[in-house]
């Protein structure tokens, strides 16, 4: 501790002593001589001292854990240290460093007429070419070929060429519906006014085609279109959990406590509020989705487990061109 004090003191003496150097012998000044500005100098020194005080404060706050709002005081001390330091630099730059304004003339123009020379050089350099048009075409072909070749790997981005994979779903007739812990759902587990997420048994749950949203509606309220008749199992309906707009997970189920006064049941996507009607086959009620949610036909086996009766009625996943013309297929 005592040694540190000695070092600190001698350092201070050295720093203070540097100012009192004997003046150099008289010589020609490079920059103009301005008057000293003792006030600005004092200011700068005071600001620098304040900055080091704040730094010391930071160290103290960091070391002492008992201080309440420690994060705030850490930020405050370090921030103030930087502010004082910056202020000291500003004062120094504006008041203490000698500034002078010098005017430098533009040099005289050196390359008069050379632009024309370059133009005619370029023009005359092509005089050996006889089939100019063909040459230009060949050049264009090679350039275009290079660009096309560079862009070809972009085909891997989307289903332009290989679309089959996008329509494979794990659903086949008889496959059971399981929850996220792989317990199979029984029809009696599904209660009205609640919603469930289900997956295909044994399938990868990350796969877009594997996840379902499952709700039970009163059978009297179902208004399935003719092509979807029989897709429900005693009022239990299953839809793809992937929104047909941008592919988010449908995680909102709007279900009224008292139907006459309140909005009717709907599956809602939290990303852009696409709203689907579970009673009428997942038709779009609101929002940017362009086509209904794909519906999975269900059946209940003899032991009461929920099983798929087939594949979805439409393609699963977000919208892209041509998606409506495709039917999902069982995965190969």
């Amino acid at each position, binding site marked *: 501790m005592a040694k540190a004090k000695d070092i600190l003191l001698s350092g201070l003496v050295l720093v203070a002593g540097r100012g009192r150097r004997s003046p150099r012998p008289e010589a020609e000044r490079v920059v103009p001589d301005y008057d000293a500005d003792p006030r600005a100098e004092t200011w700068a020194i005071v600001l620098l001292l304040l900055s080091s005080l704040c730094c010391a404060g930071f160290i103290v706050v960091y070391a002492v854990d008992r201080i309440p*709002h420690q*994060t*705030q005081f850490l*930020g405050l001390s370090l921030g103030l240290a930087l502010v004082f330091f*910056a202020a000291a630099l*500003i004062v120094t*730059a*504006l*008041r203490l460093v000698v*500034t002078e304004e010098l005017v430098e003339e533009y040099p005289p123009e050196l390359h008069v007429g050379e632009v024309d020379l370059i133009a005619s050089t370029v023009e005359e350099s092509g005089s050996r070419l006889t089939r100019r048009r063909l040459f230009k075409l060949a050049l264009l072909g090679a350039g275009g070929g290079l660009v096309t070749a560079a862009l070809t790997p972009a085909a891997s981005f989307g289903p332009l060429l290989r679309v089959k994979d996008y329509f494979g779903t794990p659903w086949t007739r008889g496959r059971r519906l399981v929850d*996220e812990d792989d317990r199979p759902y029984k029809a009696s*587990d599904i*209660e009205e*006014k*609640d*919603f*469930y*997420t289900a997956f295909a048994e044994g399938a990868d749950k990350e796969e877009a085609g594997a996840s379902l949203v499952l709700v039970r509606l009163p059978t009297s309220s179902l208004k399935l279109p003719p092509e979807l008749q029989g897709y429900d199992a005693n009022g239990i309906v299953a839809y793809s959990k992937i929104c047909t707009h941008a592919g988010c997970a449908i*995680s*909102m*189920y*709007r*279900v*009224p*406590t*008292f139907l*006459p*006064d*309140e*909005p009717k049941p*709907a599956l*809602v996507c*939290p990303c852009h*509020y696409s*709203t689907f009607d579970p009673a009428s086959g997942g038709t779009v*009620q*609101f*929002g940017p989705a362009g086509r209904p949610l794909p519906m999975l036909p269900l059946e209940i086996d003899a032991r009461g487990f929920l099983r798929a009766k087939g594949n979805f009625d439409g393609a699963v996943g977000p919208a892209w061109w041509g998606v409506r013309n495709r039917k999902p297929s069982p995965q190969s």
Partner: protein
Amino acid sequence: MRWVVVIAALTLVGSAAAADGKQVFGRYCASCHGPDASGSTGQRYGGGAARNQSVQTGMGPSLHGVGALAADFYLRTGYMPLKRNGIQPRRSRLLLDNAQIDALIRYISSLGKGPAIPHPHPERGNVSEGMALFRSHCAGCHQIVAEGGYVTNAVPPALGDATPTQIAEAVRIGPYVMPKFSTKAISDRQLNSIIRYVEYANHPDNRGGWSLGNIGPVPEGLVSWFVAGSALLGVCLVIGKRLHG
């Protein structure tokens, strides 16, 4: 002094009247839920060319068998009495006093066998399990930080003012368009964890200080761009200014 007596007398009269739950029901609830609380599908009257507005009486569900749980939830959150039917009930100033609410809850629970007021124990729950459950069951609508959000045609509320009992009740009832969760879907033990998480989300540990509503990077970004950005711009101007012509 005289005023104190008058107010005291009025309060006494008020609570005496409130002691009878059925009377309070007749005054505040019967127009929608029906005189015997068996619900009403509503009747239209009024309206016409001059005033293109129809008024309805009735249109309230039956309260038989909803139990003390539902009555406690709807009355103590200010969801009921509703201003008019067809709108979403929101948390609001309580119209009825405590004695009236107690009497109403007794009356409603006497109408049929229904669930009692739950007594959750969030201190027995686990925050991380609660967060996982909240994420899969609740966050779709209420947002992961329980700040509420939007569903089409309804507004899932922020949970900042909800008490543990009210959260437990809401999960079982599913008020307005919220799904309801049976003990099979969310057990009472899991519910403790969910409530513990909601309490944590309502009072997070704000190490940074100014929380800006805990709604994430957008307000934080705005503050850093506008406040810190303007300050920096000011400093740049000061530095760039020429003091000596």
